């Protein structure tokens, strides 16, 4: 890659005024570093991955509203986690975490257990229990 070919396509890094360093050759063929604001090709790849996450969040949200899943499942997706990762954060075995996805069992959880989940997600117990106060907005 030549120095002047380093792409400057204003990716998500540019918003925080962060550049990433690329290695490229100058006119004498010697290597140097050039800050880049992003490259469209990889922004597209990243967006594809983010869209997938958004789809999962939306699907879980529908499931929670329909009463098929507990809010824990929704917050897990929101925080880009999977079951085993969530289990290690709350310190509860993944079998039980999975059971807590059932709305019936979620309703019976003690405050202590709810606290663990709420702390992991950085929210209050009230927010955990009713994730969508205005479901139509």
């Amino acid at each position, binding site marked *: 890659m030549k120095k002047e070919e380093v792409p400057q396509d204003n990716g998500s890094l540019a918003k925080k005024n962060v550049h990433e360093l690329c290695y490229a050759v100058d006119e004498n063929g010697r290597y140097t570093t050039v800050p880049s604001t992003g*490259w469209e090709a990889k922004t597209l*790849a990243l967006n594809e991955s983010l869209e997938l996450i958004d789809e999962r969040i939306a699907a879980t949200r529908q499931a929670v509203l329909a009463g098929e899943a507990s809010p824990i499942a929704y917050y897990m997706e929101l925080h880009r986690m999977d079951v085993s990762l969530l289990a*290690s954060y709350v310190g509860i075995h993944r079998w039980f975490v999975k059971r807590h996805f059932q709305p019936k069992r979620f309703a019976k959880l003690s405050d202590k257990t709810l606290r663990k989940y709420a702390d992991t997600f950085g929210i209050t117990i009230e927010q955990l229990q009713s994730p969508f106060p205005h479901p139509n907005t």
Partner: protein
Amino acid sequence: MKIPFEHRQSAHCENGVISNLLNHRGVPISEPLAFGIGSGLFFTYLPFIKVNFAPGFSYRPMPGYIFRKLAKRLGIKVKHQRFSSTEKAKAALDEKLRQGIPVGLQVGVYHLTYFPDEYRFHFNAHNLVVYGKEAGEYLISDPVMDYTTQLSERELEQVRFAKGALAPKGHLYYLERLPDHYDLQRAVKKGIRQTCNDMLAPVPIVGVRAMKWVARNIRKWPKTIGIKKTNHYLGQLVRMQEEIGTGGGGFRFIYAAFLQEAATLLDKPILRQRAAEMTSIGDAWRDFALNISRIYKNRKSGNDRYDQLAEQLTAIAEREKQFFTQLKQDI
């Protein structure tokens, strides 16, 4: 307290931390040199491990590997510590800072507040340097950032004790002892030799053979797992290759820069020519990524597109095979 520490941005976090820590002690090792001596160039395909709903691809060895190899080859003693208690982890860090020693930390990315949201995934092998503490805030030199940043005690605890795969468990490290003199030439040769062996390894999940395996699978995926999943897998490949830290082209450009430095260090002009070849291989990787991204751009895609990608990847693998066979003979 604030340790006078020079923050220099680098492409990759691990090389950057090594290079900055060594520079602080008066050992001028550039990022490409650290990367080359530590045998950082790699390729591995782990179809049985799922990362972010896609198989594991990596253009670099296991986290921590580059640093360990570099330290061993230069005779540097590095002290590593992990903790089970967050208080002890904090106390150990504060103690080292009080002694005026900048400390390297392994951290999780997800809770790093200064990262853009798009980059906050549960990835636990990021590295940064803490070089002081002022008014309860830790002073952070994160090598992939343009500028230095700060984290509160609570924020730093969160990133040091992130959970999941490769959990850092408060992992900290610092340079304990530097050798009186070190043999840079020998270290460079060792680094190059190992990279050649890694890339030509006779196992299917590492090096050139792994690339060919991925290529074969790219042909198969559209039929076996469908277009949507295939595209997601390919996207993962692009991200591993180009995302923050590789310096472009899946570390190939950094490696070419290293070969240029090695040519001067070892007084072997042939390596300058190899560097130019590596640059052109890096350009081929960039083209490969570009072609994958075109699939997203113009949604319609026939199966022959995937065949073309597979051919492209096979061609790159062939070139790298030749390249490393020759490089091995040059050294």
